[in-house]
């Protein structure tokens, strides 16, 4: 019998399997793609299990999913410290030296990254309704992820952070000043992300462009360039509107929900303060600064 190819990660699976053994994606449902080419990230079924190295990962729950990792001897993962839900007492935890502490602090990136080593179990989750996105990484891959979106990565993955090039990006890009960068060398790795709401992915051809609300950006191949583009739309007397222009080749992942760091909470009650979403309602100061500082 033919092996089943996973439409999400392209791994080959044994006949009869209902979920991919590499990424957990359901194999017995249609791959859903919108008319414009955005593919839904596979909705991982409750209790789906998949393998990496000598370990397994089980996804539990569907509203705010939990990734429960059963780490084998010699395996390890790293993650932001605030995503740890529970762990077995015998699983050692250490601090990962990420370097660039002051820059990270200024960039609002996670300052404390923990490292958990097998054998033993540890469970991780975020705090907002959404989806766990499983990205198996082949050797020599580079993925950029918006800050505070990564759930865990295996120890074979090198972690660093990159400054978004271009001051216009820094000022107006809703994804912040820095992005997490995950790189694999000669070994494959596994990256788990948590997207707010639903997650969609599109593969851009070389030179193909798409405009994305900066706050909706979740991840991209490092081959995809990202720049803030000013639209001919005014959002106030001295305000401008910006979107992220993504240019292929490579994959782009977006999330359908996000909360901008600077936004007011929505209310329909006693307070009538308006909600503002995304990184594109730019203050007058930002717009002026753009004139002088844009690269």
């Amino acid at each position, binding site marked *: 019998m033919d092996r089943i190819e996973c439409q999400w990660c392209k791994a080959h699976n044994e006949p009869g399997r209902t979920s991919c053994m590499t990424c957990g994606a359901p194999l017995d449902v*249609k*791959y*859903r*793609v*919108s*008319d*414009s080419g*955005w593919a*839904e990230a596979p*909705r991982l079924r409750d209790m789906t299990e998949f393998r990496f190295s000598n370990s397994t990962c089980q996804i539990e729950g569907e*509203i705010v999913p939990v990734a429960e990792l059963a780490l084998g001897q010699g395996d390890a993962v790293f993650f932001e410290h605030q995503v740890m839900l529970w762990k077995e007492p015998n699983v050692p935890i250490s601090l990962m030296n990420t370097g660039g502490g002051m820059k990270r602090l200024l960039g609002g990136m996670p300052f404390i990254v923990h490292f958990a080593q097998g054998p033993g179990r540890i469970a991780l989750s975020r705090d907002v*309704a*959404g*989806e766990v996105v499983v990205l198996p990484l082949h050797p020599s891959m580079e993925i950029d992820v918006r800050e505070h979106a990564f759930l865990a990565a295996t120890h074979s993955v090198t972690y660093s952070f990159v400054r978004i090039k271009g001051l216009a990006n820094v000022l107006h890009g809703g994804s912040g000043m820095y992005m997490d960068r995950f790189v694999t060398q000669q070994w494959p790795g596994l990256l788990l992300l948590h997207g*707010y*709401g*639903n997650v*969609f992915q599109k593969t851009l051809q070389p030179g193909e*462009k*798409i*405009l*994305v*609300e900066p706050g*909706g950006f979740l991840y991209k191949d490092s081959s995809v360039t990202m720049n803030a583009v000013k*639209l*001919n*739309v*005014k*959002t*106030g007397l001295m305000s401008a*509107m910006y*979107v992220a*222009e993504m240019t292929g080749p490579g994959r782009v992942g*977006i999330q*359908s*929900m*996000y*909360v901008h760091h600077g936004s007011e909470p*929505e*209310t*329909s*009650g*006693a*307070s*009538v*303060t*308006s*909600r*503002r*979403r*995304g990184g*594109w*309602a730019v203050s007058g100061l930002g717009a002026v600064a753009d004139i002088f500082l844009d690269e």
Partner: protein
Amino acid sequence: MPSEGADRACPHCGAPVNVTLRVSDSGWIEQPPIRDMARIRFSRSTCQISGAYVPVAEMMLHDDDWVYFSHHALLHTDPTVRLANLPMKGGWNRMMAGMPLIMMRAEGPGHIAFSADKPGETLAVPLAPGWGVDVVEHRFLVATGNVGYTWQQANVWFTTQSGDEQETHYPLGMYMDRFGVTDGNGLLLLHAHGNTFIRDLRADQRILVQPSALVWKDQAVSMFLHFEYAGNASWLRSYDAKTTWLALQGPGRVAIKSVFERPEPVGPVYRASPNTRAAW
């Protein structure tokens, strides 16, 4: 690739056509969620709803079609779609009231997508000529160009007093959006947090709902405040035990959502918009 939802959805509102409407014993109709990848047709364009937690409304706009939306709803767009400000009168009042200040228009051809920022449902409200609805602020996602848009004072408020300080509360916000069409059919897309339920009120039939649960109502439905004081409470505690309801009175359709702001004790009411009171 053809999607599963494509063939089983109403082309006007996206609702699944092969399910039985679920109605609670009291008469609330559960709004059937639009299935993943279902398509809605309007004019010469289509709208495809994707996702389940925070659905995305992705439109394929024909050259002749345009839509308008509050700027914070935009998720992604093809570079071919022409974006521009939609001129609005009364901008200062809107800003003071906390309503969306920037309304934009998008003109085809090309794809453009919208989403909200809370888990819930996308509601498609097809509007026939002469029909209009009032929508609570922040629920609006996008509307077709032929849908008229105004706003009006909700006229649902009350003032509390503590010492020398007075505070005015607007349980629905100061204003409500009003949408309607005079010519042709229009499409209005809203987003409601949680699940949505609909009820058709008969003439003079009255129902009490949490004010922040209201999503939209027919223009014919009237509304006012209703203060209810719990029994067996001391004079001092009676204010804390007060429930502030929104009374909706038919005839007409109302829609509420299951996620609402938990009310907090606000002290004695000093003045209020038209209201009724009951003490147990």
